[in-house]
Each structure stands twice: as C-alpha cells, then as structure tokens.
C-alpha cells in the first residue's frame, strides 16, 4: 500500500509539472499581451516595454517557467528587482515556498489568494456534498426498493428534469425569486463562522449549496438506484434473504455496501472538481471562492493566478483519485491496491 501511494504521488507530481508547462505555453501562445493590460490607458511603447520587464514577461517562456518552479521550491521575491530590493526592501513582497507566484492584478501572492478563497469553496462544496449525498442516496434507494411504482417513476422523472437544468439557471432562479423577489431568504453573502456563527455561516451557504446539490443530486439519484438494483440481484443478497435476514439489514449491510463502491469514486472526483471551484455558482452568487477567482483571473489575463489554480485543481483531482483507490480497498475487501 505504502509503495503504491508513493508511486502514485510521484506520477502526480510529474503530471502537475507538465500541466504548469502546458499552461505557460498556452498563455503565451495567445495574442493577449498582459503588459498592455497592466500598463493601462495612454500607454506608450516605452512604458509598455518597461511594464513587460517589471512583470518578467520579457524573459523567454522557458525561463519564466523554470523561475516559477524554483519559486515553488525556494520561494520568490516580487518584484524580482535587485535594485529595488537594495533601495527599498519594504516594497518587495517575499513569497515563501511553496510560492505559486504573485498576482499583479490583485496585488498579493497567489498563495494568499488561494488561502482566502479556499474556505469559501470548501464551505460551499461540503454543504453541497452533504445535501446531494443525503437526498441523492436516500431518493435513489427509495426508487430502487419501490421499483416500478409511482414513487420510483416520480423520483426518476424529477431527477431527469433537475438534471436538465444548468446550474446557472438554478442559481439565478433561486437568487432572483427566492431571495430578491419573494424575499424568503436574504440575498446571500458569504459569512464566515467568525462573522456570523455557525448559523450565519450555514444560512449563507443555503442557496449556493442547494444550487450545486440539485444539479449533482439528480445524477446521484439515478446512479444510486441503478447500483442498488444491480446489487439486489447479486447471489449473496439472495442468500442473505434466504437466511431470513430482515429486509433493512439486507439493504444496509449487503446491498448498500456493494452499491457504495462506485459511488465513492464519483463522490471523490465530484468533490475534487468542486474544490477547484464551482465557477458558475460562485459567480452567480458573488462568492469569492476558487471558482470566481479562476473566472476573474481569466478575464484579467492573470497568469500567475491561473497557473496556481490549475495546479491546485490538478492536485485535488490527483489526491482524490489516490484516496478513492484506497477507500475501495476499505469498502470492498475484494479490492487490493498495489
């Protein structure tokens, strides 16, 4: 198991390095000049050149990329200007290792940006996962054990309808009608536990989490139903019933355990994807999580932030895969990693 995890982590690091290089190359292949954006209006060619130098965009892409990698290991100073460091060291920002870069647009290190945005995305994601898992699995199991009844058909149809609505529609609907027009809840503003206590934090998550949960829940209802139905036809389940075990015990101990295995994979990957930012939901509700940070970075050509977020999301997905593989072994004794 240990060797397996180390091997997977090593491959993951190689993948992240490759991802950073691809992001660099793609960014510089675009016709957008980040120096023009930073230089502002009435920017003369001389000023633009100076801005390009100050941002480090005058260096070859490969040099910028290796500087970036060095920053992850050693940390970096911004601006990387020895003359300024000597004359006015207090103006230089030190970004300690692992340094993902410095956002000129937001005037802070990417690490600081991620540190601020991460709790927002984590909160929304956890709240959404709890909601969709609870209702998705519950409704999926209900549909499976009442297969063919009106309950089953009603749940499956509702899931299909929900699945057809994109998250921006659900989000806008909830915001426009539930919060603004009918004033059933306040217009959501992200509130930390320190600011509003547990209650304030939870209520601030309600609409964004419901938006995400409705989207994912629909898929989980259908998948849970399918997995449970499949498990119910297994020989060992029939055997359990034949032994006279109660229906609830058969369902929970035998059927659900087998049905959970593929769900764990999905949960892990979906959660990891959400942790990289629910771009649409965070943008609709103006929640400054990783998704909105990514959206803003793209619209402002903020390369350091883009790269930092690409690597962060990549890390989440790689780690989630490893964790899911390990959980497989815990849930299903037939599976052995390595």
């Amino acid at each position, binding site marked *: 198991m240990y060797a397996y995890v180390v091997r997977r982590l090593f491959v993951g690091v190689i993948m992240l390095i490759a991802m950073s290089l691809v992001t660099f190359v793609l960014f510089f292949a675009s*016709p957008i000049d980040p120096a023009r954006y930073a230089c*502002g209006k009435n920017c*003369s060619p001389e000023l633009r050149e100076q801005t390009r130098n100050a941002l480090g965009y005058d260096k070859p892409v490969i040099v910028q990329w290796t500087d970036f990698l060095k920053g992850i290991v050693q940390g970096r100073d911004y601006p990387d200007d020895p003359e300024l460091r000597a004359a006015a060291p207090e103006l230089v920002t030190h970004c300690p290792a692992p340094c993902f870069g410095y956002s000129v647009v937001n005037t802070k290190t990417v690490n600081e940006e991620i540190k601020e945005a991460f709790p927002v995305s984590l909160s929304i994601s956890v709240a959404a996962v709890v909601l969709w898992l609870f209702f998705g699995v519950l409704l999926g199991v209900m549909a499976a054990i009442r297969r063919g009844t009106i309950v089953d058909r009603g749940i499956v149809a509702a899931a299909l309808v929900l699945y057809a609505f994109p998250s921006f529609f659900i989000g806008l609907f909830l915001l426009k009608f539930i919060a603004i027009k009918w004033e059933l809840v306040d217009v959501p503003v992200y509130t930390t536990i320190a600011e509003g206590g547990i209650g304030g934090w939870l209520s601030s998550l309600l609409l964004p989490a419901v938006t995400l949960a409705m989207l994912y829940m629909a898929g989980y209802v259908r998948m849970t139903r399918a997995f449970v139905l499949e498990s119910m036809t297994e020989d060992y389940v029939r055997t359990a019933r034949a032994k006279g075990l109660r229906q609830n015990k058969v369902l929970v101990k035998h059927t659900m355990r087998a049905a959970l295995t593929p769900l764990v994979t999905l949960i892990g990957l979906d959660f990891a994807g959400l942790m990289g930012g629910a771009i649409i939901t965070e943008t609709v509700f103006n929640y400054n999580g990783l998704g909105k940070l990514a959206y803003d970075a793209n619209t402002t050509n903020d390369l350091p932030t883009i790269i930092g977020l690409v690597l962060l999301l990549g890390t989440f997905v790689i780690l989630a895969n490893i964790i899911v593989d390990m959980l497989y072994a815990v849930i299903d004794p037939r599976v052995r990693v390595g």
Partner: protein
Amino acid sequence: MFKYRKRVLAASAAIALAAGLAACGGDDGGESSDNPTGDAAATGEAGGTLNYLIYAPIEHVDPQRIYVGRDITNFSRTVYRQLVTFPISTDPEVSNTPVPDLATDTGTSEQGGKVWSFTVKDGVKWEDGQPITCEDFKYGASRVFATDVITGGPNYLLSYLDIPTDEKTGLPAYNGPYKGDGQELFDKAITCDGNTITYNFKKPWPDFPLAVAGLHMMDPYRQDKDQGDKSNFQIFSNGPYKLEGTWSKNKGATLVRNENYDPATDDPDNIRRALPESIVFNIGQTTETIYDQLIADSGDAQTAVTGQRVPPAYYNQIEGAVADRSSLQASPYVDYLVPNFRNMTDPKVREALKVATNAEAWINAGGGEKAYAPAESIVNPAVVGYQDNPAFSGPQEGDPEAAKALLEEAGVQTPFPITFTYPSSETADKQAAALKETWDAAGFDVTLDGLGDTYYDVIQKPNKESDVIWGGWGADWPSAITVTPPLFDSRINLTQNSDGQDYGAYKSDEFNSLVDQAQEAGTLEDQTAALQEADIVLGQDVAYIPLEIAQFYFLYGSKVTGFTTTPASSMYPDLGAIGVES
C-alpha cells in the same frame, strides 16, 4: 472598451447640446425621475448608510493609479481631496470649472502656462490628524514616475514635467522615489516653498488645473504610508470619510466619518455635502442582480445607487413608480469607427464608407435612445470647445446609393471587400449586422470579425487584416487635448510593433502640426481653437466615423435622496450630493 473620465468646461454650444441631450433623455417615455437633470439644488438628507453597487472589481484605489471616471469622482467626494476640484452642479460650465479644494485658489501660471503654483491651505489634515504639506503633494507627483511599480495610472506628468528623457529607455531620467535615480532632476522640476508648490513644465500646460481636478495623479501622498505596489488597495484619507477596516478588491469596503476632516477647510455645499453617515461599496454582483434588487426595491437596495447602466433587457421593467427612480443622461463617452488607412488608401472609398454608415441602425440594434444618443464628432459635446464636426452633420441613417456612386467614382471593383473588427457580444453582434446591411447595399462586401478578450491586442497590431475598426473613448479631463491627439497623433502611436491607440494607422502632417500648435498654446482659447481645427481635418480625411454617445440610464433605491449626476462626476451618481433617508 476603455471607458474613462471626461468632463467639460463647455462652450456655450456644447452646453446647449448637452442640456438638450439630458432633457431629451429625462423626458423620454415618461421615464424621467422627479429630478431628471440631477438638480444639484435638491439636496439629500443627512445620516444613514448609502450603498454603492458595483459589478467589476475596482482595479486601483491608490490615488496615483486610479484611472476610471466613476472611481475618480467617488474618491474625490469621499477620501481624496485635490488641490482643485470640480464642484457639484448640473450646469456643465459650472461643474467643469475647477474650484479650490486643498489649495487656496485655482493656481497661478507663468511663462505662458509652463509654470504653475498653488498654495496649500492651512489646517488641512490627513486622517491621523497630521497636516497635509507641500511635500506630500510633491511626493505624490513623484510616484507617477515610478512606472515599474505604480502601474496603470495616468502618465501625463511624464511628458510635461521638465525632466530630461533617458535616451536608452525613452522614459524620463527620473524613475520615481523608490530607487532615487534622477531625484535631483525631480527636485528642480517641482519645488516647495513653505506651503507653495511650483510645477515646472517643459511645454505649456494651459489646462493644468483641469487635469489636476480631473485625475488623482497630482494628489498628495504621505511618504511614510507608501508601500509601493502593496498600497494599491490602501486608502489614507484626507476627505470627509475614511476606510473602515480594509478594502477588499472583490467585496468592496465601508467608508465611515473621518473625525480629522474639518469642513471649514472645504466647501461642503459645493464640493462635498458628505450626507450619509457611512457609504458601503458593494462589489461583485452582476448587473442583472443589481437591477433585480433595485427594481424590487428590496432590502439594502432601497438605499442604493449604482454606476451600472440598466441592461436593455430590463428597459420594459422601468415603468410606473419604478421609473420615478430612474435617471437618463448622456455619458461623457463616444463610440466610433476608424478605417484602416493601410488598406483603405483611397479617400473616396473612405468617404463611401462614411456615407453608407447607418449609425441610427447601430443605435437601434443596441437598445435605442435609452442606450445611445447620436454623435457628430469623436469629441463629446461636453468637452471644452466642442463643435459639431461638419463632416458628420445631417442624417445618420446611411445613404447606400450615394456611397455606391462614390465607389464608382473611385473606380474600385465592387463588391469591395472589407472586414469589420469589433469586440463581440450579443448586442454588438446585432449592431454590427445592422451596419453591414447598408454597407453591403452600398457595394461593400462586409465580413464581420467579432473578437473576444484579444480585441485590443489584435487591433493594435500593424499587420491586422481589419479594414474598419470599432473604438470607444472619453476625455481624461474636459479638453479635446485628451481625445484627438492620443487617438490620431501618429508620432506617439505608430511603431514597428504596434499602432497604439491609432488603430487605423492614420498619419497626417497637417493634423500633427495642429496638435503641436495646441500643445504649445499658452492659453485655453488658443489650444481649443487648434483642436477644433484638428477635428475638422480628421473629419475631412474620414479618420473616424462617430457612432454614438453612450447614455447613462440608472436606477436608484426609493430611500435615496438628492440623486444627482453631474459633469463633475462624469455623469455617474455624484456622491458629493446624494443622501439617504435615515
């Protein structure tokens, strides 16, 4: 699209037209507010919390880096006082005439506008109670030169202040206060004698007070508070409000009373009434969400104003009682087209393009008269010395037949292929299609080339394939010197690698010579006359084709009092006058 400040010391004709546009908008369809022209005499109530709703994050709150009209005026009225500033008034002539703020008067000039002096008032203080000194103004100006650290702000001082140019970099030999290179040159160019600060320029700057009032580049800055780039989101106030906590780029901030602000050193009635007890800048909600809340008039939206324009899809919801809370005024911005002079070399072809341009169809496709007003020059009517450009007077619905005749005269093969490049959006695509219709009917064969984020990078390339290019502009201060020269002076724009802001690669010795005349003029009158003549040359050459003036159509909450937009506030809500029911 660059949407920056423009305001104006208007000539009488300009005032008449601006007022006309305002009245036209205000009376439209019964949707004028109870205060349609933003009557500054109608003052708001004191107390309460005013909410200012903003969609996109503010890029800079550092005074030397602020360069967006809405932000310039918001901070002028709240936290950043200036040597001179523009007063609250709906009369452009009044609103665009600088009045003393931190200075005792509006400045004195010598040597034909090459030397300007101001005396700082006694008793003016920073938020920590320390006095604002002449040295603070000098230090503030020095930051403009640190262009490798203080990026993105207005840089006019670099070309005006009497500091030699470094031949190697093409930039001033002084590089700001941080590294110290060339400090002695700067110390000669700006001097302090007691409370009197003197600026020495290498060329006349007759409208310098307008520039001081129109931007924050000349604002004072306390050296001990300067953290370079790290100061980008820090506010150290000298106005009636100060920052509570920190400024969050993506969330905004709250401004509360500054106890060290002394209204006796200000002119509260005319500059800063400072009515709300606090002002909350709420950043990040989409324009649609902002308008959903304003229309519903729910919660904090009752005490909210915004600088976001009503989206065309919401026009039909602004009726009845909601319309009483609306304001429709002409903005300081003009949108225009430029022919690419590298490709469209024949003047008759350019003339045909102009004649065939259906600006009315463009306006209608973009939302009609609530979205745009007709334009007859690239210079906004509110700018000092505005005059209609005779090349663009008359009907603007396009005349395909006349254009066809011009193309025949030019002897070019028709259909004449052209590519129209513009920043793509759902609305802009419709507008471009509307233009294409009459251009095609005139004998052009138009390819629409809508671009996304790459727009400005593409149109600035000398080897672009575009034949007609869209642009948008507003004056930095109420003078055409900040409009036509930056956009059409080939000497400052065209280089081997870039066309700068002269997207059409227009090059004219006659125009450049008139720009020189304007820049060497010792008086505003002489400068204005040269710029008026320069605009006529641009019209004759069809260097541009005006499309429209964007309309500022705003809604505000029912508990907002004294809602006012003024030329001083670039026609955004003027926080100097607005209050809320407390």
